[in-house]
C-alpha cells in the first residue's frame, strides 16, 4: 500500500466520522492536502514528533469528537514517550495511526530503525496501550480507523508528486479552530 493510498482511506474515514485529523509534518500533510482538504485537517508545518501529543490534548479537550492522528515512524521514534502517555490517558475518541514507511520520507528516505529491527506495534503494547492493531492493507486499515488506540500500517517508502500546501499557519489554525469550536469565537 502506498502512503497516499493509506492517507486517502484515513481521510475518508475522518469524513464519515466527522473526525478531526492531525497530520504530520512534511509529505504526509501535503499528500493529505492534495487528496482531501478539509477545515478539520490540522497540517503540521513544524515541531516534528508532536502530532500524537497535539491530537491527544485535542481529544481530551473535546471528548465528544473523534480525533485521528496521522503520524510517521520517524516522528514517533522522536517522541516515544507519547506512547506511555497515550496508554495511561488516551481517551476513547483518540486514534493514533502510524504510517510506517521505514524511512524519513521527507528528507531523502534515510532508513529508520523500523527498517531493520524496531517494531512500533510491540513498543506500543509494551508501553501499555491496550488496543494496538496492525493493518497493512486497505481493508484492515479502513476497519481499524473506526477504532481507538494505536494502528500501525506498513506503507511503501516514497512520496507522491504533490505540491506544497498553499495555506499559511495562521490560516490553517483559524479554520481548524472554527471547525472544532463552531459556536465559539476563535
Amino acid at each position: 500500500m502506498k502512503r497516499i493510498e493509506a492517507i486517502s482511506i484515513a481521510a475518508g474515514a475522518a469524513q464519515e466520522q466527522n473526525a478531526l485529523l492531525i497530520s504530520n509534518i512534511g509529505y504526509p500533510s501535503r499528500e493529505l492536502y492534495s487528496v482531501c482538504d478539509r477545515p478539520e485537517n490540522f497540517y503540521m508545518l513544524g515541531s516534528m514528533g508532536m502530532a500524537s501529543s497535539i491530537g491527544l490534548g485535542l481529544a481530551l479537550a473535546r471528548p465528544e469528537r473523534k480525533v485521528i492522528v496521522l503520524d510517521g515512524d520517524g516522528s514517533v521514534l522522536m517522541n516515544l514517550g507519547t506512547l506511555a502517555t497515550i496508554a495511561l490517558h488516551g481517551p476513547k475518541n483518540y486514534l493514533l495511526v502510524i504510517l510506517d514507511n521505514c524511512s524519513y520520507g521527507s528528507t531523502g528516505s534515510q532508513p529508520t530503525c523500523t527498517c531493520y529491527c524496531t517494531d512500533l506495534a510491540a513498543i506500543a503494547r509494551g508501553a501499555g496501550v491496550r488496543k494496538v492493531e496492525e493493518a497493512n492493507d486497505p481493508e484492515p486499515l479502513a476497519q481499524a480507523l473506526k477504532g481507538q488506540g494505536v494502528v500501525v500500517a506498513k506503507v511503501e517508502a516514497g512520496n507522491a508528486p504533490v505540491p506544497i500546501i498553499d495555506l499559511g499557519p495562521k490560516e490553517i489554525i483559524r479554520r481548524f479552530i472554527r471547525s472544532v469550536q463552531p459556536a465559539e469565537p476563535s
Partner: protein
Amino acid sequence: MSPSLAIYRGLKHAGIDFAASVPCINLQQLLILVSDDPDIIHLPVTREEEGVGLCAGAWMGGRSPALLMQNSGLGNCINALASLDLLYGIPLLMIISHRGVKGEPIAGQVPMGRLTVPLLQTLEIPYQSPASGKGEEAVVASWEEAQEKRCPAAVLLDLEYWRQA
C-alpha cells in the same frame, strides 16, 4: 499563603483548566493541588516538549493550558515552542521552577539556570520573575499576556521565591 498555593490560586483565577507537567522538587506541592482539582485535566508527561504539543491541542480544543516544569525542561521544548506555538500563534502558560540561580547547591543546574532568561529573550517569549507574595498576580498577568499576544508566556519561580513560606 504558601508559595505553591499562591501559584495554584493564580492558575484558578486565570481559568487554567488543562495542565501538563514534568516534576521538580519545588513543584511538588503545586502538582498535588493541580492533580486533586477536578476541574483541571492534568497529564504528567515524559518530556516537556510532549507537554507543549498536548497543551497546543488542548487550546485548539477550547481549553486554557499550562505547562509546569523545571527550567531544564525549557531546553527540551525549544523547537515545539518555536515551530508550533510561535508559528501558529498558540498561547501557553509556562510555570517554570528556575533552578541554577543564586543559592543553587547542585552544579548541574547552573548551565541551564544561566541560559533560561537568554533563551526566553531570544525566543521573544515574555516572562516574569515574581518576588515574595506576587506569585498569584504574576500567573494571572502572564496568562492574559499569552492570550493577548497569542504566544507562550513564562513565570519563572527561583529559589528565593520558594523559600518565602
